[in-house]
């Protein structure tokens, strides 16, 4: 009898929960030339990956409660691999979340209690052509490499004795075609270029505010022949070529549109536009190659389409824009619809 009473309660509880109205999505942002930006969805826990629960699973849920769904704690960076899996680093949970929406699977990777090869502060993430996962650990001073299934493969930058070679590695980019790994070492004000085995081939930059000089560089993105580096405390993004030569820069300090106050994640869409997250203002600003502000989206807040301390940014091959909304403990997904393309893939 007592078990029957206990089982009855959640049914009553679930009826009340269903009455809660869904929050409306923000309207599409209509842009010049028929372009537009649409809000798609947000996700924050394993629960959103799950498929439809069967009868027996529902029955068990009623009897003993729903299982714990791992939740984003303090997400920072994101990458999407060729299978469409969203890989999110979470320094707050000291691990990496892998959301596989297509196969309704979720995995959490962590490396606690692994002695000298423990992962302590997973910061930024990138994937290579084989979907291997590269994670910078800003505390351990290393790069951890995992297989697509999440199995630990190796650590790059691990010195004899377990210490990390890098002082504070943050941004990471992998170019499988060129067989290069790019790592920003924020405290050294440099970008290191490594081969796929982890051997350092070149270091780019020094402390300063001139061309190819950095003041606490953070994120890095490799795209075509360009290398984009967030030069955080110079309030700009530098465009370099693959040899480390200066090409141009975008950004200035200020508190108006087009200025950068706390530049965080960057990404480039199919039309070559540069997207820059501003952590303080809670917006994503979009620039062309000349540094001209095209538009921005987002606002400071907790609603859909709003951000609190946004950090990581990733744009996949379908121009889906993934923004890590760190303080709101979620990832918001938008989609950019650019100009229709020709059969050759060029914009009409």
């Amino acid at each position, binding site marked *: 009898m*007592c078990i029957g*009473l*206990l089982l009855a*309660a*959640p049914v*009553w*509880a679930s009826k*009340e*929960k269903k009455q*809660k109205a869904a929050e409306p999505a923000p309207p599409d942002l209509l842009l010049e030339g028929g372009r537009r930006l649409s809000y798609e969805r947000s996700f924050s826990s394993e629960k959103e990956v799950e498929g439809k629960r069967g009868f027996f699973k529902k029955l068990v849920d009623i009897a*003993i*409660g*729903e*299982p*714990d769904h791992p939740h984003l704690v303090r997400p920072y960076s994101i990458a999407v691999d060729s299978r469409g899996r969203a890989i999110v680093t979470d320094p707050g949970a000291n691990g990496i979340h892998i959301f596989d929406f297509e196969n309704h699977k979720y995995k959490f990777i962590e490396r*606690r*209690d692994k*002695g000298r090869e*423990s992962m302590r502060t997973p910061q930024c993430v990138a994937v290579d052509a084989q979907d291997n996962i590269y994670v910078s650990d800003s505390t351990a001073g290393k790069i951890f490499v995992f297989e697509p299934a999440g199995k630990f493969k190796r650590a790059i930058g691990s010195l004899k004795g377990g210490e990390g070679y890098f002082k504070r590695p943050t941004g990471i980019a992998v170019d499988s075609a060129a067989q290069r790994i790019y790592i920003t070492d924020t405290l050294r004000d440099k970008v290191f270029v490594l081969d796929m085995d982890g051997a350092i081939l070149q270091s780019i930059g020094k402390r300063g505010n001139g061309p190819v000089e950095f003041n606490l560089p953070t994120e890095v993105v490799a795209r075509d022949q360009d290398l984009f580096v967030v030069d955080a405390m110079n309030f700009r993004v530098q465009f370099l070529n693959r040899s480390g030569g200066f090409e141009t820069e975008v950004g200035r300090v200020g508190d108006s549109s087009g200025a950068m106050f706390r530049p965080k994640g960057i990404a480039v869409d199919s039309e070559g536009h540069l997207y820059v997250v501003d952590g303080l203002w809670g917006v994503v600003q979009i620039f062309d190659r000349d540094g001209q502000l095209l538009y921005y989206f987002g606002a400071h807040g907790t609603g859909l389409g709003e951000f609190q301390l946004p950090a990581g940014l990733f744009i996949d091959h379908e121009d889906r824009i993934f923004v890590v909304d760190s303080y709101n403990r979620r990832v918001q997904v938008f989609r950019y619809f650019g100009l229709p393309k020709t059969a050759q893939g060029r914009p009409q």
Partner: protein
Amino acid sequence: MAAQLQVGEDWNFNLNGNLGYSYNGSIDNGVSGHSMGFTGDATLKGSYYNPNFLNFSVQPYYGRVQSNTLFGSLSNSTGVTATANLFSGSRFPGSISYGRGQNVSSEFGIPASDIGLAQHGDAQNLAINWSEIVPGLPTLNASYLIGDETSTIYGTQGQSSQNNRTLSLLSTYKIDGFLINGGYMHRNVNTDLAEIINGSPLPVQASNSSNTYQVNASHALPMSGSASFGWNRNSYGYDYRDSYSTSNSGVSDGLNGTVTVRPAAKLSVSGFANYSDNLLGAVPEQILNSGTVINAPGLRSFKNTLEGVDAYYQLLSNLSVHGNVAHQNQEFLGHSYSSTIYGGSANYNLNKRFLGSLSFSLALFEVANQLGNQVLGGVANVNFDRKIDRWDVNANFSYSQNVQTIVLVYTTSSYGWVANARRQLGNRMYFAAGYGGSHSGLTNEAGLTSGSHRWSGTFLWKNYNVNGFYSFSNGAAAFTPTGLVSVPVGVPPSLFAPGSVILYNSKAVGGNVGGVFMHRLTFSLGYGDSRGSTVDPLISTVTQTQLYNAVMQYRLRKIFLNAGYTRLRQAVGTPGVAPVVVTSYFIGFSRWFDFF
């Protein structure tokens, strides 16, 4: 994300909690008992119209839900706590809180001892608070507190009880640069102590009531100065009934004034004048407020005037000097005393590392009168903090000497020490050990010294911990229903009747192993042993407590499987008294619900 139930347009409720079922068993001195039944707890929170208009929280519990972890599975307790806030953020905020617990396990405390005596009893309290905060008008805060509790120490027959009532009114007002505050407090405490506790032939009954009035005013002066004046009156009545009865009452008045100016950035000068009569009348009141039963002697007229000048100068960034001159007249028990006091102190703080890791501070003062130098008093502190190899080590030694001017000059001193060492042994593996203690120094009362020592060690590995301790303490104390209370520092024991102050000593040893296995199984195993005695002029009482405790909880989604076992062996009374043995165990499950 918690769900919420909305009733109509204005009411909001949120309810969650645990419901469960358990089997309980107990063996009380060889007599066994068994039962099965529901257990549970809940948290209901809500608001009406707006949380600032009315918000409330109610937390009932039923069955084996204990707030006390040391004796956590000894008894099934039931109770509720509730709070309601009205008009929060407005100019007339108020609050009401209520708490009630039945058959709650608790601890009869012994000063500086880790393990006291296990006791159980009922308690309830009610507090009402209301404020008026209207700009431009005097603020007012009124509160009324009622508290009642009864308790029985395992192994004794008698029941102790205490009830108290406190009414407090406080008001502040700012006008023409004056900050004025005034207040009134009425307090009534009635205490019944079971005879077995203090060894008296009859139960002790005591009641006291007091009324306190106070008015203070302050105003800013030129040269960053200020002036303040105050008056207070404390009247009290006190009845005591043991093998004999006594009662006394008294009134004390105090007037004080202080003027302070800062003629230079580094110099501060103040003048003060104080008057008080029947000063000692406040002393028993201070102790009685904690529920202590002390048979205070009749106190005759006492008058004290004190006037003087105080100066403070910052000589260097880390060195300041302070000096004062005061003249004092006292009348006590028909005698008159007069003295001039010269005082001085130097405070020196060394922020740099000295010999690697030492720092110290020192303050001294000198007291002199027409007969010459009397007492050198002071406070000294030595700190050591250093990393030695992989050990983090810190230590502290402090010494203080206090000069009381009651009955002209009365000197006490005490010293204390503490040392800790900690190191990381491996990945998520730590060890820490500590030793600390305190001891009384100079005293005018032979045989009333007190001291305590405590050794402890902790080993942590991942989610598991092992810790242990050993302590012993002794000194002078007085009884309250919740435990022994140390006689406050600086109060001469000679002010109390013979037999009021009880000597105690206690030794305790214990250990605990606990942890979380696979993020789901939480367990704790504990052992404690405490032996002690109290001595008053009439009778000696010995106490002995042995406790074995084991609890575990396994979580499967929102289901908790709970089990616990406690075995208490406790003896309280004259030497040779037979101990009482209480064994209690339970096993059951509960489920957490987020109802709405």
